[in-house]
C-alpha cells in the first residue's frame, strides 16, 4: 500500500511557521490524510535534510535570502506539483511588508538601534544576507496551485488536499471574509473613524457600521472569519479578493471606503485619507506581490512620507 501513497515534501522559507502548524491543526482529520499521503520531508515532523522525489510539494514562506531561493528551486525540481501555501508564499505576506522600508533601515532597526533590546551588529558570515527585496515564490519558480491564508483554515487545507488526492479540479471560491462573519450590516449614524483600541464594539453590528476600519469585505475568505466574529477588525491576512487583484482600478482603500460610506455618515475621501495614514497595516500582507505592488494607485512610500512629515 505504501507505494500507492501520494508522496509529500514540504519546506519552510521566510515565514513564521504557522502554516506548518496549520497542517497539524487538521487534528484527527490528519489521520484521514495520512491514509493517502506519505510525508517525506517536513521540517517540523521529519529529519529529512534532502529533497526526495515527490508527487506534491507544499512551500510556505516568501523568498528573502539565498537559502530561500535555493530551497524553492530544490522543491520545484523534486515535486511534480507545487503548492504555494499561505499568504507569505502567495503574496509575500508579513515579510513582504518590509518592502515599505529599505534593507538598511530594517537592519538598523532590528540590530543596530533596536529600541526594545540591547543592540549589536547585524549577523555576518554565518548566515545568508538579506536579498534586496522580498519575492513571492511564483516569481522564482513555477507554482501549480495557490492556497492563501495566514494560515489557511484547516477546513480549506483538508478540502484542498483531498481534491488533489482524488484528482478533482480544485474550486476557486472567492467569497470574502464577511460571508462567514455573523454581524448585521446595518446603517448607523457613526461620523468618526474609531481606532482599534477605542471602545468595545457592539457584538451584533458590523464593524464598518461602527466606524472601525475592517478589511473583511476586501479579503478572501480562507479563515472562516474568526477575528470579526470576536470583535477584532479584519486585517486582511488572506490577501485581497479576486476583484481587487484582477482589476487595476479597484483598490483596498477605495473598496472599503465605498462600503463604509454607505453604512455610516462618513464621507469616502475621509475614510480613504485615514486608511492611507495607516497604509502599512492595511496593505502589509500583499504589498510584495506585483498584483498590488505595481498598481498605479498603490503609493506606500508617499503615504509613509506624508505621515512622517506631519509628525
Amino acid at each position, binding site marked *: 500500500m505504501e507505494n500507492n501513497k501520494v508522496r509529500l515534501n514540504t519546506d519552510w522559507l521566510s515565514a513564521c511557521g504557522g502554516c506548518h502548524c496549520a497542517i497539524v491543526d487538521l487534528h484527527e482529520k490528519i489521520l484521514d490524510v495520512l491514509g493517502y499521503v506519505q510525508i517525506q520531508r517536513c521540517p517540523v515532523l521529519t529529519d529529512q535534510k534532502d529533497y526526495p522525489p515527490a508527487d506534491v510539494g507544499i512551500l510556505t514562506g516568501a523568498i528573502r535570502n539565498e537559502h530561500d531561493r535555493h530551497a524553492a528551486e530544490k522543491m520545484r525540481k523534486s515535486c511534480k506539483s507545487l503548492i504555494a501555501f499561505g499568504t507569505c508564499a502567495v503574496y509575500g505576506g508579513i515579510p513582504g511588508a518590509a518592502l515599505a522600508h529599505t534593507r538598511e533601515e530594517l537592519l538598523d532597526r532590528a540590530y543596530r538601534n533596536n529600541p526594545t533590546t540591547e543592540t549589536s551588529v547585524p549577523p555576518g558570515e554565518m548566515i545568508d544576507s538579506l536579498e534586496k527585496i522580498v519575492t513571492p515564490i511564483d516569481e522564482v519558480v513555477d507554482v501549480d496551485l*495557490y492556497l492563501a491564508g495566514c494560515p489557511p483554515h484547516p477546513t480549506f487545507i483538508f478540502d484542498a488536499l483531498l481534491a488533489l488526492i482524488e484528482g478533482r479540479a480544485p474550486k476557486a471560491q472567492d467569497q470574502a471574509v464577511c460571508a462567514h462573519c455573523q454581524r448585521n450590516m446595518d446603517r448607523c449614524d457613526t461620523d468618526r473613524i474609531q481606532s482599534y483600541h477605542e471602545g468595545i464594539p457592539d457584538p451584533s453590528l458590523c464593524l464598518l457600521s461602527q466606524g472601525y476600519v475592517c478589511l473583511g469585505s476586501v479579503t478572501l475568505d480562507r479563515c472562516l472569519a474568526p477575528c470579526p466574529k470576536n470583535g477584532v477588525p479584519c486585517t486582511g491576512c488572506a490577501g485581497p479578493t479576486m476583484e481587487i487583484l484582477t482589476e487595476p482600478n479597484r483598490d483596498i482603500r477605495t473598496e472599503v471606503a465605498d462600503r463604509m460610506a454607505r453604512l455610516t455618515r462618513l464621507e469616502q475621501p475621509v475614510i480613504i485619507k485615514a486608511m492611507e495614514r495607516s497604509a502599512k497595516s492595511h496593505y502589509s500582507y500583499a504589498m510584495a506581490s506585483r498584483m498590488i505592488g505595481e498598481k498605479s494607485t498603490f503609493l506606500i512610500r508617499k503615504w509613509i512620507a506624508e505621515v512622517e512629515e506631519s509628525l
Partner: protein
Amino acid sequence: MVHVEINESGCRGCRMCVDICPTEVFEFDEPARKARVRESEDCIGCLSCSYLCPSKSITHSDFPVVKNFYRDLQFCRKKEAFL
C-alpha cells in the same frame, strides 16, 4: 438569459445590492434580514451588485461576456490555480 443567485448564508443584510441594482432585481426580506432575488429575468448583467457585495455572495451565470481589456491578465491566468 442572465441568472442571479444569492448565497443566503453569506448575506449580511447590508441592502447594497438592493440600492445599486439599476433594474430592481433584488428585494429585501425584512424578517429574515436578507436580500432575495425578486426577478432574475430583469438582470442586465452589469455585475454592479456582485462587485459591491461585501461578502462576494452574489453570482451570475449566462451573462454576456465582454473582453475586459483593462484587467490584470497576468493575475487572471493565475486565478484558475487558486484553491
